[in-house]
């Protein structure tokens, strides 16, 4: 499938806006998951503004596709997308993680329009997604389920239980996207808990595996379309990404897994947004 330049450009603009929204949620001195949110921002923009069927007016539209943020700590990137869809007022972004706020520290389906499940305890989201996929299939629904996983999260045994079950049940309406940024909370995945041959592992469990550069919009779109076209089982998109992508001071650094920026960094971060905007328009 070919994608018009205009579509690709528009999605790149969206990804920049998503990152800008993330920044809005974590002003200087406020702790937030910058790294793991920005690493998956391009994929999330492609999903919400191109691939997924979602209604702009009704977050609970029965005909919608579902997205489960299994790596729930990176929910800022999802809030950033949901705000763009207009599911809540932009002013909520400034109130993230405040007492009784609409935007909680981790995904809360009862609070936030567009959040589909409760996640935060890592390792459970793929299972929840599988259950949704099976339920939708029982109802003969055409809708699809997307699960966003962290590569550190893959150390949870339950992930592999779900991987096996999804394959047994040939859940072709399920797509897992692994944010393969190689960094976790305290250090690199290579140092903490390396899992060898990740691509082969998913394949050997019977999944359709697609490996991409998770910051290349065309590759992302192609992978998502290929996942849709595959009807023989679930698809895993292993997306090579950079934690903290687009914010050079944070890129690849575990420190920015969940940190506060100082004034200087925050200023630089906004400059990065401006630079990106110029690059896309050029």
């Amino acid at each position, binding site marked *: 499938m070919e994608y018009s330049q205009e579509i690709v450009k528009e999605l790149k603009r969206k990804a920049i806006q998503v990152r800008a929204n993330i920044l809005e949620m974590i002003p200087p001195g406020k702790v937030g998951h910058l790294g793991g949110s920005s690493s998956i921002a391009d994929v999330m923009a492609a999903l919400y503004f191109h691939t997924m069927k979602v209604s702009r007016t009704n977050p609970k539209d029965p005909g919608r596709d579902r997205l489960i943020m299994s790596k729930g700590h990176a929910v800022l990137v999802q809030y950033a997308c949901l705000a763009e869809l207009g599911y809540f007022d932009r002013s909520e972004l400034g109130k993230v993680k405040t007492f009784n706020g609409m935007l909680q520290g981790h995904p809360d389906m009862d609070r936030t329009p567009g959040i589909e499940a409760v996640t935060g305890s890592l390792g*459970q989201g793929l299972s929840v*997604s*599988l259950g949704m996929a099976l*339920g939708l299939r*029982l109802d003969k629904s055409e809708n699809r389920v997307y699960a966003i996983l962290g590569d550190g999260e893959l150390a949870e045994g*339950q992930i592999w239980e779900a991987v096996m*079950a999804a394959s047994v049940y040939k859940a072709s309406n399920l797509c897992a996207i692994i944010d393969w940024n190689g960094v976790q909370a305290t250090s690199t995945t290579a140092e903490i808990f390396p899992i060898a041959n990740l691509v082969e592992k998913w394949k050997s469990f019977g999944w359709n595996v697609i490996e991409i550069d998770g910051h290349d919009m065309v590759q992302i779109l192609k992978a998502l379309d290929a996942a849709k076209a595959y009807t023989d089982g679930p698809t895993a998109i292993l997306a090579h990404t950079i934690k903290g992508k687009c914010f050079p001071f944070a890129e690849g650094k575990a420190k920015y897994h969940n940190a506060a920026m100082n004034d200087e960094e925050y200023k630089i971060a906004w400059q990065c947004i401006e630079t990106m905007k110029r690059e896309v328009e050029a």
Partner: protein
Amino acid sequence: MRTSDSLRKTYGETLVELGKDNKNIVLMEADLGNSTMSSLFAAAYPERYFQMGIAEQNMASTAAGLSLTGKIPFINSFAVFASGRAYDQIRSSITIANLNVKICGSSAGLSDYGDGKTHQSIDDIALMQVLPHMTVLSPCDAVETEQMVKAMVASKGPVYIRINRNDLPIVTNPNAEYHIGKMTQIVEGKDVVVFATGIMVQQSMAAAELLKKEGISVRVVNVSTIKPLDKDVLLGYCDGVKAVVTAEEHSIIGGLGSTVASALSKSRLPLEILGVGDCYGTSAENYDILLKHYGLEPKDVAQKVRDVLAVK
């Protein structure tokens, strides 16, 4: 009307019956379907039965996903695994969002006598009732099991039901109206009230019989909903008695006894809690040996009643 003494067979059969009209009911199991009797459903409606392998955590979270698409998933395993192995999954994926997932803990208490401590579940009530939104049910016979399964399907939200592996005689009235949260007097009495659950209901009835000969009149109340506990009704049953005893096939910590104790904290009634001590189970060649060893026989209930009456 139920005449079978098997709680788990009743459980499976009732779901088969309900599944005929309610297409949203789905069952999941983790390689123990012939023990939990969820296999009956598999035979009737294979497309709505999910064999999830020996992977209880995935089963619990997958059930959450199914419920989010409007299904009513029942997940099945031994009580010890259904509650403990997937505790965080039940907490995070299911109860925080108050999802409509039903959990059946089979072979609860010491009832899996042969398999020993790893398979005996004397902490499941504690684990499940500490979770907000969770309802905890503990039937004492097959009649109640059938009524409960029907009520579980009719109710919204997470429910845990613990089921005895062994046959238990029918002691409840099949014609009585049932609803979750109701406790019922099984034996009339005026000196002491025994709040019992599960197999301890029949043990307490026998204890009341023993004590009658000594001139002690014991009221036995079947508390088959551990949570939510109807405090007003509970206090009503304490009206006029001299003391209270609780009896359960579960740890004395965190189960029915603890819950009744908090409910009675403002009353001046002496209370004795009968249950398994702060210890694990053990294998035995039959169930009766364990009931004797852990002090869950009628004579033990009777002794607790005498003890509590001796408290000044």
